[in-house]
């Protein structure tokens, strides 16, 4: 136990540095994933075949292959086409694009779960298609999609661990480095695992629950709200 405390004192700052990078990657990737999911989810519901097929192709490609392969492709192959990305950028873009494809299905599912009558009422009230979507349909869909998004964000956090493999100095990268120099594998990897767990359980899950409560109140779905 005392040995572990010494270990923490010595390598704690590096774990903190790594955690900061992991959080940055997670937040940036999450923003990208939400944006892509909204666009692709809506495109998949389009009446136009071409728009629908673009979304389907995107979703199937990103869900049909592995995140790690997409990451390597973006980082090592894209430069051959003249698009060179910084490793940090390549990291969160790959994670965001991958989870965005999964999110698109969540968005699509949530939108079609809004009762048909809501569309009809919006049309009867002569709301423009844009207003119909942003004021009537999406807010109701949002409530249905929040719980699955909570899971997706945890998947996303876990996905960011892979960016260490293109040398982004995140939590996993630091853990590997420390393991490489000290050979204290249980301490190095174990500490990182615990930090990931705490990020998921103490940061993502509670904030998603809070968001769910706020949304439910705003929509008047809770008594006394």
């Amino acid at each position, binding site marked *: 136990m005392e040995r572990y405390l010494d270990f923490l004192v010595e390598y704690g700052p590096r774990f903190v540095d790594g955690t900061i990078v992991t959080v940055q990657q997670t937040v940036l990737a999450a923003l990208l994933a939400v944006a892509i999911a909204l666009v692709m989810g809506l495109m998949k519901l389009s009446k136009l075949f071409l728009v629908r097929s673009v979304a389907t192709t995107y979703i199937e490609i990103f869900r049909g292959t592995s995140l790690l392969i997409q990451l390597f492709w973006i980082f090592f*192959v894209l430069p051959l086409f003249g698009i060179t990305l910084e490793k940090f950028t390549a990291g969160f873009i790959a994670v965001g694009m991958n989870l965005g494809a999964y999110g698109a299905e969540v968005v699509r599912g949530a939108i079609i779960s809004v009762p048909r009558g809501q569309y009809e009422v919006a049309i009867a009230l002569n709301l423009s298609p844009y207003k119909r979507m942003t004021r009537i349909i999406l807010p109701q869909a949002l409530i249905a999609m929040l719980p699955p998004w909570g899971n997706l964000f*945890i998947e996303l956090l876990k*996905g960011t661990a892979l960016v260490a493999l293109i040398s982004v100095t995140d939590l*996993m990268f630091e*853990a590997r480095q420390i393991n490489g120099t000290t050979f204290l*594998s*249980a301490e190095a990897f174990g500490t990182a*695992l615990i930090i990931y*767990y705490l990020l998921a359980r103490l940061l993502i899950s509670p904030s998603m629950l809070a968001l769910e409560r706020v949304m439910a109140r705003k929509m008047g779905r809770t008594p006394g709200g």
Partner: protein
Amino acid sequence: MFDWKWDFTFEILPRLLLATTNTLLAAGIGYTIALVVGLAFALGQRTSITLLTVAVRECVEFIRSTPLVLQIFFVFYVGPQVGVTLAPWTAGMIAIGLHYASYLSEVYRAGLDSVPKGQWEACKALNLSMGRSYFRIIIPQALPPAIPGMGNYLVGIFKDTPMLSVIGVAELLHTANAVGSETYRFLEPYTLVGILFLAISLPAAFGLRRFETWARRALGVD
């Protein structure tokens, strides 16, 4: 596409196809472990021993919320520290099997929870043993709602096998990395790996949907 070399493509294709068998093997072994251990995880959370239930629950939550790639490293490097030196394949199968066992235990749990309580009461009334109740009455009813989730995770474990390359399991991505570092060409190997994955996972997902409908009918749900 510019710079795409077809002769190089056909030169490395056999090697990648051979590695694909390793990928499929890894997914198969990992999934088999996950099916069995996952059931143990699910049943462990249904005992009347509170301590065991809580311990298993926390364990599953921990495995589910932390990155698989880190768990692979953990198993591979911590094994020798406690005196068990594991081959990359063994360590990889343990890590990926346990990770997916924690996912599958949630699927099983949802399935078991969906069986009406009256079924248990009926088992008790008919004086069926615990084993008979589970295997003849409860599990056959818990299975159909669990099948879609189980199918998704079968495709999921297949797509997560590239992570095994980090400890040197010679699967598809590992081979592509090797080709890349030998020839300094990354376009063809990485693109081929992506295409191979699509070529397997898309038909597999389609096949699983068909299997679901068939299984639901065979089990007399629809």
